[in-house]
């Protein structure tokens, strides 16, 4: 008799995915508490600075400018003690695998000046195809690196509160903050549900039965979510919540923050100017 869901089955993959999500959140919080360069900066400076670099990379129409922004992101990662293996594992490999698969056909499908003909297949790599694939890959990997830097150098709650600089309504920020906290709780609940189901199941199940099990788990989680929402609401009311949302603004700009903000602004402006 074989196990319910062999290696690579949907139960394993779901559990692995949830475990990876939890592990990523813990690693990010741990790294954000470190003593690197970006960790010492005000969250608002990081949000504005890193997002403006992502935007500069998106606007650039020269490959070397995007490559320069990418190099800057790697330098910032090193100065912030975010190991390169973390960048590789959590940003680069995924981005290269996914976008690489999308970019490769563009080498042959984009019309332009022929560069190389693949022997046997008679497919022609064009100069324009190579350029467009490079644009796509470089932009994706640069943006993924900068986004990961924000995640790994700033606690979640601070990132969300820093979004207020973009005039996002306070109620949105409050919902984002609560949702991000309850994601971890629901992830853990779902993870435990699947683990317990896996540990008490023997024998092979048919596809329809496995589907019923997966959607049943989703249904249970949905019911629990509503129940939890009611409990949280009562707890909030008991603490005096009457619908008005207030956020504690504990940010304070120091000299280093102003310097960093100026640095980010200068670098982003230079990248936009050089890349136009």
């Amino acid at each position: 008799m074989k196990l319910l869901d062999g290696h690579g089955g949907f139960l394993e993959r779901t559990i692995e995915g949830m475990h990876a999500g939890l592990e990523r959140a813990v690693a990010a919080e741990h790294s954000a508490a470190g003593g690197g360069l970006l960790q010492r900066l005000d969250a608002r400076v990081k949000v504005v600075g890193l997002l403006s670099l992502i935007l500069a990379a998106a606007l650039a129409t020269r490959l070397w400018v995007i490559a320069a922004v990418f190099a800057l992101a790697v330098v910032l990662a090193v100065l912030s003690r975010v190991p390169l293996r973390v960048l590789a594992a959590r940003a680069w490999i995924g981005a290269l695998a996914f976008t690489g698969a999308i970019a490769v056909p563009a080498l042959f499908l984009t019309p332009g000046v022929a560069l190389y003909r693949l022997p046997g297949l008679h497919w022609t790599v064009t100069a324009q195809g190579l350029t467009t694939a490079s644009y796509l890959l470089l932009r994706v990997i640069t943006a993924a690196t900068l986004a990961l830097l924000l995640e790994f150098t700033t606690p979640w709650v601070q990132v969300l509160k820093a979004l207020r600089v973009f005039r996002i309504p306070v109620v949105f920020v409050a919902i984002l903050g609560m949702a991000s906290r309850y994601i971890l709780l629901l992830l853990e609940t779902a993870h435990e549900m699947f683990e317990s189901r896996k540990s008490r199941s023997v024998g092979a199940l048919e596809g329809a039965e496995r589907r019923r099990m997966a959607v049943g788990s989703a249904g249970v989680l949905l019911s629990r979510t509503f129940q939890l929402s009611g409990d949280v609401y009562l707890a909030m009311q008991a603490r005096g919540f009457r619908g008005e949302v207030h956020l504690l603004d504990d940010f304070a700009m120091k000299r280093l923050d102003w310097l960093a903000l100026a640095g980010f602004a200068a670098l982003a402006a230079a990248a936009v100017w050089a890349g136009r």
Partner: protein
Amino acid sequence: MHIPDGYLSPATCAVLYTGAAPFWYVALRRVRKALHTRLVPLISLFAAFSFVIMMFNLPLPGGTTGHAVGIGLAAVVLGPWAAMLAVSIAIVIQALFFGDGGITAIGANCFNMAIAGALVAYAVYRILAGRAAIGSARRVMAAGLAGYVAINVSALLAAIEFGIQPLLYRDATGAPLYCPYPLSVAIPAMMLGHLTIAGFAELTVSAGVVAFLQRSDPSLLKTTAGRGAALAEPAAGRAMRPLWAGLGALLLLTPLGILATGSAWGEWMARDFSNPAVQHEIAATSFQQAAPLRAPEGLARLSQIWTAPFARYAPPYIRSAAFGYLLSAMFGAGLIVLACLTVGRLFGRKEPAT
């Protein structure tokens, strides 16, 4: 489905942020009005649920697995406005903290999945579910199709956004600056995966969870059920009565078919090709393109394989054409009902013994 950074130009992203903003504004106002103090905990928790549901690996027919976004489910349980807020929040958190979807593309992803997806899912669900009872199978089917259609509309929007990039943004050498594929490549490439795997994942989770909630917590389906929907399923016989009456009326009306003259285009028989009247009719309905004087060889050969017992709805042993039509309709409808009952008996869920 989550568009990463780098695939869309900043201008496209800005347009889609601008397109999404009014929907967020209206959604926030409407949901706040309806929920008041419950808004924050309910949307937060459901956003967290949407996030987690996107991590579920769903076993699909054919042995593969797929991820669902849960748009259909969110629209069915929360309604379109709260659903678009909850799914948007989940998308923002995915982009900011999990690297799934780009930060510059948050507006595009929210517009495609949370906004268009939720509105389409809700419309499909309400149209198909009508006033059916909350526990009815029709609601399960409606929820599944709502999810399927919504994810495909979202994918189509994303494909159009990808496909217009090479038309609008190229460098001096003509190389596309962002997504390199035109509409002719982007749309089939996106839709192929969504019409099959992703669509069925969405259908499975929407229909499956709604079926589950019908048994375990039907009150969660009341929000979007409409005023006429009752919690309990009416007695099966009574609910089916209008359908049986409609079927009976249609059977009685079948002799109307003999009022139509000629044959339907493309439904010709082999012997029709040698009939000058039919030849003339074929030419008249085919832009004066004359049909061959003899039946095509393949048609002539294959038409010998099977001879229908009720050919042309008029069995040769019945003289009245109207009665022949009626008999054929009763026989055909009876066969279909029998087949449905057999399939239902074979694959239907057995009621647990009480």
